[in-house]
């Protein structure tokens, strides 16, 4: 609710609604990555494929069936889920093989969409404007809120516990009675649905685009980096990671465009070096925190504990 309230107040602080809506879209994508990677350990480099599927599912529904905005969002999510079902055999792979296979799958989706006339891959998609920027932002904030509730459930429920057990050791989890295939497939489909909703929102916001944009691999990279920076396996981590990094992205892009890549790249390198567990590790258990942070905290706490250690 706090996150939703902060996002809701966003336009009063900064009224570039395209930026704020894109921020909400990236929060959704980071949460999608959080579910599939954070809770199950499968790193989906081709996550953008689900995003693109959502974009084209919703867009084609608008163009051919003239559906409304909410139906388009639902159909966008459904399209991504269908794509996830088709790609679910990839879950038999693990580690780098899984990451590369999803990457290849997303590119296969791109080439199909980009080269078919019925998907407007050649002429580009052009949608009517369905939501005003303000209305679309409100829908995006609602989508983020619902997604956060889902992630809360995934984190705290028996289902989430099963996912974490699979992440630690799938064989042991199976021996303990966890239906590994079904559980991780559900997580995979849920993350795809979230990416589909994000894609539909993006399509409604952008409305004119060519296939290379929705399937740009940079989108996958950002979603993963944002989630990792904030801290996966938490609810708020990916939100904070996205808000901080994407705002910095925008800020540097505006204030120092000539040094954009240099500054942003260095920033990410420094942050990853000193915060490998993400921002949420700073408030996590002692074992999760970076060593430098533990030292800092110990130094600050030293005066209080001094009488106990003195001879």
């Amino acid at each position: 609710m706090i996150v939703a309230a902060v996002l809701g107040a966003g336009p009063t602080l900064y009224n570039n609604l395209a930026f704020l809506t894109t921020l909400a879209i990236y929060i959704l994508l980071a949460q999608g990555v959080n579910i599939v990677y954070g809770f199950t350990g499968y790193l989906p480099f081709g996550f953008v494929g689900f995003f693109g599927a959502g974009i084209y599912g919703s867009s084609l529904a608008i163009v051919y069936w003239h559906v409304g905005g909410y139906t388009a969002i639902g159909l966008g999510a459904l399209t991504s889920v269908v794509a996830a079902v088709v790609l679910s055999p990839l879950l038999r792979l693990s580690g780098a093989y899984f990451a590369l296979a999803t990457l290849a799958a997303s590119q296969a989706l791109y080439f199909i969409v980009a080269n078919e006339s019925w998907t407007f891959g050649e002429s580009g998609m052009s949608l009517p404007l369905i939501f005003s920027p303000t209305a679309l932002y409100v829908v995006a904030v609602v989508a983020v809120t619902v997604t956060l509730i889902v992630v809360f459930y995934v984190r705290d429920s028996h289902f989430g516990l099963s996912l974490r057990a699979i992440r630690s050791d799938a064989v042991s989890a199976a021996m303990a009675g966890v239906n590994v295939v079904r559980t991780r497939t559900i997580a995979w489909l849920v993350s795809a649905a979230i990416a589909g909703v994000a894609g539909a929102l993006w399509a409604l916001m952008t409305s004119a685009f060519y296939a290379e944009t929705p399937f740009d691999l940079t989108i996958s990279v950002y979603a993963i980096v944002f989630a990792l920076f904030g801290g996966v396996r938490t609810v708020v981590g990916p939100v904070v990671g996205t808000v901080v990094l994407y705002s910095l992205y925008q800020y540097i892009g505006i204030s120092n465009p000539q040094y954009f890549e240099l500054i942003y790249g260095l920033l990410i390198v420094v942050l990853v070096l000193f915060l490998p567990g993400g921002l949420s590790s700073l408030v996590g258990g002692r074992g999760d925190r970076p060593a430098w942070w533990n030292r800092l905290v110990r130094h600050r706490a030293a005066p209080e504990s001094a009488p106990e250690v003195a001879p």
Partner: protein
Amino acid sequence: MASGLAAASLSASLSAGASSNVITVGTLYANTGSFATSSMPEYAGLQFWVKQVNAAGGMYVAPLKKKEHVRLVSYNDQSDPATATTLYNQLLTQNKVNVFVADFGSVLTAPAVTIAKDQKHLLFDITGSGTSFFSSGPNPYVALTSLPVSAVWPKPVVGLLSKLKIKRVAILYCQNDFDQAQAAAIKGFLASEHLQPVYFQGVPTTQSDYSTIVQAIKGANPQAVLEFGYPNNDIAFLNQLKSTNTHFNFVLTPFPGQLPTLFRQDVGAKALAWGYTYAVPPILRINKVNIGLGLNAFLQKFAPGKASTVNFLNVAGYNAGLAVQAAFAHATSMSQLGIRAGLTAVSGKLQTLEGTFALNKAGAQVGELLPVAQMVPHGAGFQFKIVYPATAAQKAMVNGTPKYPAPKA
């Protein structure tokens, strides 16, 4: 962070939109990524226009009945359309620019077209000639300044094929809006003459291997081969002809005329010899203008002593500035529709270094048609000879006759 952004946006507003005696023009450029080589020359042309206008004391703004200086507010979109979306919005919502100018090409222009329609803000689209931008009826908020819509480009090619009595035509095109529209236009012309292309094949825009395709075209025994691609496709196709020593009597590719330096370097003058392309400025030398500089003056002032380095995209960026200038000079008010009315007023009458500036109701450019040029060997290199005009006015610019069939190099 939010306060930082708010502070940044406030300072930008104060420095740009809110200050008096200045007209703010917003734009994006890509100094990295796949569009950088095209975007930066275009941006340089627009910057040159701002410099020229301000050196002359500003541009005349009709509703204010006085001259105003121009301030260019620009951001780097890094060739990324998603970044471009937020930055175009930044220009409108934070910098509150008076008008905005799109980055190069249809992909980076697409987000701007949406925003222009949505926020009812006038967009000057330099080279985004995608048909979908102009196919949804009258639209007062987008104006294509530098290139006709794709489907219009091949009009003079059709005339040239007819003049040369060519009946067997092979058409190879990339599957994107720009190239497919041209291929379809030629195919339509042939159909009207009860002819079918002997080869008609689309390939992905990412195509780089043309070995089997060239053999297939050769097998169709065409009198003319028309390859519609982006620069990388044209280069790969021409290099394939060169490496396999394949000769056709007539080969047309769109981009050698726009980027001659690149093609000389990547394909070589010998392989380009006797090929055809669209003639754009500076090949097309238009000096009779009623706004801004003529082509010769532009070459001298834009790159003193280095006229050969100037390309079409430099001219296109400058030409977009001239369109902005004309719009304000004839605007009926400072509202967006008032500024657009200024463009309507000059449409068909404005003569720039690119030719006649004319818009249709959808905002598409219907003037500035491109003649066909042939690359004629000249010393160790080649020179462009305009061999077929696109308009009656261009007849005087024709300075060569098409050499057909093309001699073997």
